[in-house]
């Protein structure tokens, strides 16, 4: 130190050449360090941005289809004998009638050719099992339509809906060349044309066989590599595969040989002809045989206008069968299908049927739960904050309290769930799965957040305001309640909203108190069994149906929307009331 002072005193002011090499090098080094730091920061921001965009894009693209549903405009005969056999129009009788059956009957009228019991089941499976309820509502609202025919939109089942949304299989359609002779024999039909009539589909089938051969051979090679540990079962499998490769090679090698189509491995090949649809089972260059999916004109023996149709996904790899696709396409061709906004998603409770499941129950459950949370934690939290900040004696006990409130904010939320289970359910005997208990547990969870935010807001009010109030003769309490608390309110509200948003997204503690149950009814009171939005998402994400995956993403979108709105409100409040003194 002394040395430095001495040296400085001896040398006097230091001469610096701005443009000397040394000075320039130092400046450059500093610039580089700055540029590097900026690059790191920018990189982090961009990376975070990319993840957010990917996340949102994934959720939106998955969830958007769930906001729409497909319906068919079905004409239903409201047979008085079936709905109200006694003709008294008794509301209970009307309510108990089998409307689902009426819808099935209406559907069968659209496809008169379906007589097989199994096919009938399949046809009925196209519409939702909840569609009868819509008809019931319609009839109960206006019983005078009994005995008439009415056309109403009927909700499709999830698989049919997914097919119409383009999830299931791709459908390719091409104009057929030449004239075909039609030989109908009951359910089967034989189509005979000129030599090259079926050349294109046959060539496609041969190409597929060739690909199949390569794929099987690849599997076989894998198997041969594992031969060191060979055993009898493995050997049998190897022989089987070898035989299949040989078979595929042989069949694909001969372009003229007839082929049998296997629905397990091959895309479905169909022919539209004479107003009907035929699924081919056998193809030769000049002729083909198949089963009738949609009936052909009974007297048709010859047609020169036909189409070749391909369902590119093999039937065994999709949830919707060829005949169901045929029906749906037929309905679509007749302009009977319609796509509409799925209001049902917001008006229905949970359901085992994906097309019927909605988030109304979860939304009401969340609202009731949050109402209970707010009711408990706002007065208690603000009261505690005011007491600790303004009235509590400054001693060890207060310090310990303060530290522990901060600790509580860091306690894992599942612990609060366990506490709620032990205290509210087991000790106080409150109802399980109820928003009351959920709200109490979340109130415990949010309380530290609100106390901390409220204390910070109270602390931020300048002491001069309180002094001014005391100076004109306000008591301590009057000064706080007339001046300090109102000024701290925006900060307190901001903290409360953020706490509520936290509570809205919380799942773990609610699992512990049984809010994870499958609940169809929409809760009416805080003691009814209910579930909340994040738990509903958790429940749906576990279900195997493809349609529920979309519902999950859609529910996440709704939850995110609520969180964005709440956080936005908090930011707005903060901006609006920032620094009024």
């Amino acid at each position, binding site marked *: 130190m002394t040395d430095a002072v001495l040296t400085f005193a001896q040398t006097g002011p230091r001469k610096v050449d701005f443009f000397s090499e040394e000075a320039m090098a130092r400046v450059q080094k500093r610039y580089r360090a700055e540029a590097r730091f900026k690059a790191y920061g920018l990189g982090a921001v961009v990376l975070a941005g990319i993840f957010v965009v990917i996340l949102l894009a994934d959720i939106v693209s998955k969830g958007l289809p769930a906001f729409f549903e497909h319906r068919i405009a079905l004409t239903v005969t409201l047979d008085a004998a079936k709905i109200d056999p006694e003709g008294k129009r008794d509301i209970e009788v009307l309510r108990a009638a089998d409307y689902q059956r009426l819808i099935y009957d209406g559907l069968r009228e659209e496809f008169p050719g379906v007589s097989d019991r199994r096919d009938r089941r399949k046809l009925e499976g196209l519409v939702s099992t909840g569609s009868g309820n819509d008809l019931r509502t319609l009839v109960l609202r206006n019983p005078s339509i009994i005995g008439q025919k009415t056309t109403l939109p009927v909700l499709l089942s999830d698989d049919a809906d997914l097919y119409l949304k383009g999830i299931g299989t791709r459908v390719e359609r091409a104009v057929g060349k030449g004239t075909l002779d039609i030989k109908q024999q009951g359910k089967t039909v034989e189509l005979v044309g000129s030599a090259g009539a079926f050349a294109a589909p046959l060539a496609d089938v041969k190409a597929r066989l060739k690909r199949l051969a390569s794929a099987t051979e690849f599997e076989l090679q894998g198997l041969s590599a594992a031969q060191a540990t060979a055993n009898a079962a493995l050997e049998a499998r190897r022989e089987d595969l070898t035989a299949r490769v040989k078979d595929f090679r042989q069949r694909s090698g001969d372009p003229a040989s007839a082929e049998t189509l296997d629905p397990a491995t091959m895309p479905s090949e169909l022919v539209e002809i004479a107003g009907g649809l035929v699924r081919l089972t056998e193809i030769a260059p000049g002729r083909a045989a198949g089963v009738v999916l949609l009936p052909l004109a009974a007297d048709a023996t010859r047609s020169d206008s036909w189409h070749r149709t391909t369902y590119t996904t093999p039937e065994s790899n999709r949830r919707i069968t060829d005949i169901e696709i045929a029906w749906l396409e037929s309905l679509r061709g007749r302009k009977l299908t319609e796509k509409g906004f799925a209001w049902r998603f917001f008006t229905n409770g949970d359901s085992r049927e994906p097309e019927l499941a909605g988030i109304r129950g979860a939304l009401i459950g969340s609202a009731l739960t949050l109402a209970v949370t707010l009711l408990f934690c706002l007065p208690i939290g603000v009261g505690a904050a005011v007491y600790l900040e303004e009235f509590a*004696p*400054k001693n060890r006990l207060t310090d310990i309290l303060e530290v522990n409130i901060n600790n509580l904010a860091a306690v894992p939320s599942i612990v609060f769930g366990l506490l709620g289970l032990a205290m509210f359910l087991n000790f106080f005997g409150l109802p399980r799965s109820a928003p009351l208990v959920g709200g109490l547990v979340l109130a415990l969870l949010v309380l530290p957040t609100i106390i901390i935010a409220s204390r910070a807001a109270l602390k931020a009010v*300048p002491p*001069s*305001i309180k*002094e*001014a*109030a*005391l*100076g*004109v*003769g*306000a*008591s*301590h309490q*009057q000064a706080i309640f*007339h*001046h300090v608390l109102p*000024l701290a309110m925006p900060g307190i509200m901001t903290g409360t909203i953020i706490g509520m948003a936290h509570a809205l997204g919380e799942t773990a503690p609610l699992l512990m108190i049984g809010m994870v149950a499958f609940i169809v009814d929409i809760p009416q009171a805080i003691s009814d069994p209910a579930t909340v939005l994040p738990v509903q998402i958790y429940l749906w994400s576990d279900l195997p149906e493809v349609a529920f995956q979309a519902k999950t993403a859609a529910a996440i979108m709704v939850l995110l929307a609520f969180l964005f709105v709440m956080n936005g409100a908090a930011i707005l409040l903060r901006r609006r009331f920032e620094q*009024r*003194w």
Partner: protein
Amino acid sequence: MNSASILTAEAPNAAASAGLAPEPKVVARNVDVHYGEKHALKAVSVDIPARAVTAFIGPSGCGKSTFLRCINRMNDTISTCRVTGEITIDGQDIYDPRLDVVLLRARVGMVFQKPNPFPKTIYENVAYGPRLHGLASGKAELDEIVERSLRRASLWEEAKDRLGESGTGLSGGQQQRLCIARAIAVSPEVILMDEPCSALDPIATAKIEELIDELRTNFTIVIVTHSMQQAARVSQRTAFFHLGTLVEEGATDQIFTNPRDRRTQDYITGRFG
């Protein structure tokens, strides 16, 4: 302590020489203040005459503000603060355990160093005190109190058309006059001013000083100031504090022209402080 008692013995004489009523409004005897371990004020005894301006001067940390805040018990808000001794207003002990500070502060108003209007309307700022103490029986009466207070604080002409606007929207000098209006709205007998002009420019300061001079006819005013010129301009009596003790107290003319204590002389001639 000794010097203080001598001074107070001479106080009536000094008051008489300044042409003031001999009866003091506020009487302090042997006031000691401790902030925790720190002995901030040592055995202060002083008489503050009614309807006059008394200035407290002294270097920073000398205890003048501390003593000022003892007069309306504002020090009560500081938990570590301990006050001993006796302060009376019109002969009544203000540290009597039966006394409620709210009543005291209604009689002893205060104006702070930094203008601190409530972030409410100008009207609400002035009306808050009267409403709190139930001084007005109706809206008309309250309006009258507000107008009278603002007139006395020389703010009425500037503020009468914007009573509904926020008090924080006024200029610094106007805010301080609003605070004075707020203080006099509850009709106190004593007004304490803690460096009321230190945050203001010279023009605003001149206005406040003018106002203080007018208020003297109705109120007993105690002002703490760092500016000796200000003390000389506005006060009739001056008390000089140094290191927690009251060094000298007397008529302002006498203190500034003929100080008896060496320390006072050093301070007013700018040798320290």
